[in-house]
């Protein structure tokens, strides 16, 4: 397979993101329009109907198909495609856009991820009961299953997880469009009501409404100065962790698989040294912890010491979730992967304000999805 074939073929010329939160007074169309028009302006798109060749969109809670996006933006007489990969949908939409340009089909495409879970009238995720044998279960319950095993083998505990939540809340206060703008303490995290051991409320991402968008163009049509390029984007399917007879519950297999693929695409052989900033899928604190290791930022089992030494904080060697992550910025399922692109583009441009990581050349974004058996990773860099 030509793993490097998409590297540097596609530029991201504009990004947009509506404020994430309980957007009671905005419908999906309102959020889509806000995000897309911000991305148009950022990319210098003045006549989207003429300049956008195709749209790739994704939403988990909507059942209206691609029409919801095309109708909101009034982009007609062009292909509009809806993709679905649960929480990795945003990265999946990006991948489809990148592939379509790299294949030479289009010059400029729009990607839009959005979701509106707060129209359902329930707080938190739905308790899923599709079948009799599918126990009443929630995403917290899926990911919590790695805790007992990881804690026993590597000696970490709830306090280590709490520090991740504290970091992400702190970063969230610095991002204008984030949902939660309140710093918290380790003590607060540990005292919060239990959701699914070891996850208390503050170990869980904030489910919100939101939309994010990006404009992609053929790299050779964009002036090289300050150009931001897609170095690699991979989406990988994995087995259901609950049924997989070979699962050791110490790592999230698809994360490691997707990392191997995307590093090969991007020509990265030392992720710890080459990745300057990362947006990781912190749906739960432990998910972020496992991802440090599964993506090769640190050795398996060593997360506890690196959390303690501040490696992943703003100012650390490899800042993670600089905008607050799913935890504090908010998690509108299909928007999240695109929101990460929004943040990484700002980091690469040096326009991230108080969140700015110095000297960013390579930025990574990581989505776990697929219910929850898939992983998508995108790596952006400068020319």
């Amino acid at each position, binding site marked *: 397979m030509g793993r490097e074939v998409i590297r540097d073929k596609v530029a991201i010329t504009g990004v947009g993101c509506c404020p994430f939160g309980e957007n009671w007074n905005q419908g999906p169309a309102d959020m889509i329009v806000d995000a897309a028009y911000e991305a148009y302006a950022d990319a210098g798109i003045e006549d989207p109907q003429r300049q956008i060749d195709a749209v790739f969109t994704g939403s988990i809670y909507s059942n209206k198909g691609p029409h919801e996006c095309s109708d909101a933006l009034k982009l007609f007489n062009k292909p509009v495609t809806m993709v679905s990969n649960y929480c990795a949908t945003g990265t999946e939409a990006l991948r489809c856009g990148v592939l379509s340009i790299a294949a030479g089909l289009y010059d400029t495409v729009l990607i839009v991820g959005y979701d509106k879970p707060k129209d359902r009238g329930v707080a938190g995720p739905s308790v899923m*009961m599709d079948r009799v044998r599918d*126990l009443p279960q929630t995403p917290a319950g899926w990911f919590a299953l790695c805790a*007992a095993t990881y804690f026993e083998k590597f000696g970490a505990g709830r306090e280590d997880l709490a520090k991740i939540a504290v970091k992400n809340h702190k970063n969230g206060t610095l991002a204008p469009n984030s949902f939660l703008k309140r710093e918290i303490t380790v003590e607060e995290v540990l005292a919060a009501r239990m959701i699914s051991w070891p996850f208390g409320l503050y170990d869980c991402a904030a489910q919100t409404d939101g939309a994010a968008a990006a404009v992609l163009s053929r790299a050779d049509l964009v002036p090289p100065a300050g150009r931001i390029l897609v170095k690699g984007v991979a989406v990988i399917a994995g087995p259901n962790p609950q049924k997989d007879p070979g699962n050791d519950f110490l790592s999230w297999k698809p994360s490691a698989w997707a990392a191997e693929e995307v590093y090969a695409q991007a020509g990265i052989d030392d992720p710890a040294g080459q990745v300057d900033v990362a947006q990781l899928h912190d749906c739960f604190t432990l998910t972020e912890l496992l991802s440090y290791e599964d993506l090769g930022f640190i050795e398996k089992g060593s997360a506890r010491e690196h959390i303690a030494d501040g490696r992943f904080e703003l100012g650390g060697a490899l800042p993670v979730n600089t905008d607050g992550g799913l935890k504090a910025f908010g998690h509108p399922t299909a928007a999240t992967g695109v929101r990460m692109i929004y943040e990484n583009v700002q980091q690469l441009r040096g326009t991230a304000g108080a969140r700015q990581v110095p000297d960013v050349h390579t930025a990574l974004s990581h989505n776990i999805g697929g219910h929850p058996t898939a992983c998508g990773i995108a790596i952006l860099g400068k020319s």
Partner: protein
Amino acid sequence: MPGIVSYGAYVPPTRLDFEVMAGRPPREGAGERAIAWRDEDSLTMAVTAGVNCLRGFDRTCVDGVFFAGVTSPYREKQGAALIARALDLPRALRTADFSSSLRAGEGALCAALDAVRAGAASCVLVVASDCRLAAPGSAQERNFGDGAAAFLVGAHDVAAGFEGGFAFADEILDVWRAQHDSFVQSWEERFVIQEGYAPGIQEAVRGLLEKQGAEISDFAQVALYGPDARSQRAAARALGVAETALVDPCFDRLGNAGAAFAPLLLVGALERAVPGQRILLAGYGDGGFAHAFRAEAPLAELGARRGLRWHLARRSKVARYEHYLAARGLDAGSAAGQRGAGLSATAHHRERDDEIAFKAQRCLACGAMQFPAQRVCERCRARDAFESVRLSDKIGSVVTYTRDYFFPTPDPPTLVTIIDVEGARVHLQLVNLPAGEVRLGMPVEFEFRRIHEMGGRPNYYWKATPFAGPAAGEGSA
């Protein structure tokens, strides 16, 4: 040879015709169904059917009463005892109620035949009676009818000797009524017929023919249960039942009378049969059954009885649909209170080996165990090459766990685990253990439990429970 000594029936005289159901005036010649009026229920109908059956027989000889049906007015309290007193039967009496299934009438009849054959009883009255409630305006309302059939089962002077029977059981959620449902619920009609009734009734009849070494054409009278006219006709055709042999199912005059329906059709067969003819009775519900009888000389001596024919001739139409609703304590909006269908009964049907029998599979190519059943092996990708392995009687161990406080339960947290059973991984609740005492690697066994009540039904699955060690006398190692 044990057999049926006498028979009787009861069908309420009130008829609701299809015109009236549609809000129009009744019309002579319109299809109709028999309905129990406000002062009737399955017990009153059973008593009258019993009276009609016992007419001309010495009641003091009766030493058993079995009552069958799915609509006893009592959830707790025996119907058979009340029927026995109403019929003034002797106090020394074995009584039992058979319920829950549309095959309940068959169960009662079989138990009576077995008791007589074994010499445990000499003369047992079997009464099947039902008045099932359909949601107003539903398709079931056009199909359901009310009625009762009674048989006196004895060893001597039988009018119809019992030659043998065949039955099988099946777990399927096709038609049901949970503890708090007012109306009969059912899954999509096409599923109910295509996966339930149609193959079920044929399996029953073919099973009997094979067991008896008989052909369908050996039976001059075939009393074939059916949920509706069309499905019953299709089943008769598939089985090759001759037009002349098929007992009239009376859908447009009686309706499907639940657990009493097949017994009522047997009454219809006895009314038509002449000594020497063989009679086939087949029914369906959570499985199926088929019984073979032979009409004997005493049948001719029973004379005209108040059976099916007599009752179908005695009828009066309800003038207005509202009168029917009032008599049944319904209003037209009652159906709105029906519960959602909940979890897919179709999926449950497909997955009953996984969920109810708790079976995993072992790959015949590489030996990998997996649960639930897959088409392609997770390890070696071999396709459709598996053997089934029962997990329910195995010992497993805890791979990992979480204590879930989020999903609604009266006593959180719920202990949720991944259990390894012979290499298969199963996501299971762990019960009978304080949530703080779970340990990685601890051995567990499995118990059949209710898992949740989605759709207003009890949903069953297995749970893990700490391994309690071998019971006394079990295992020697």
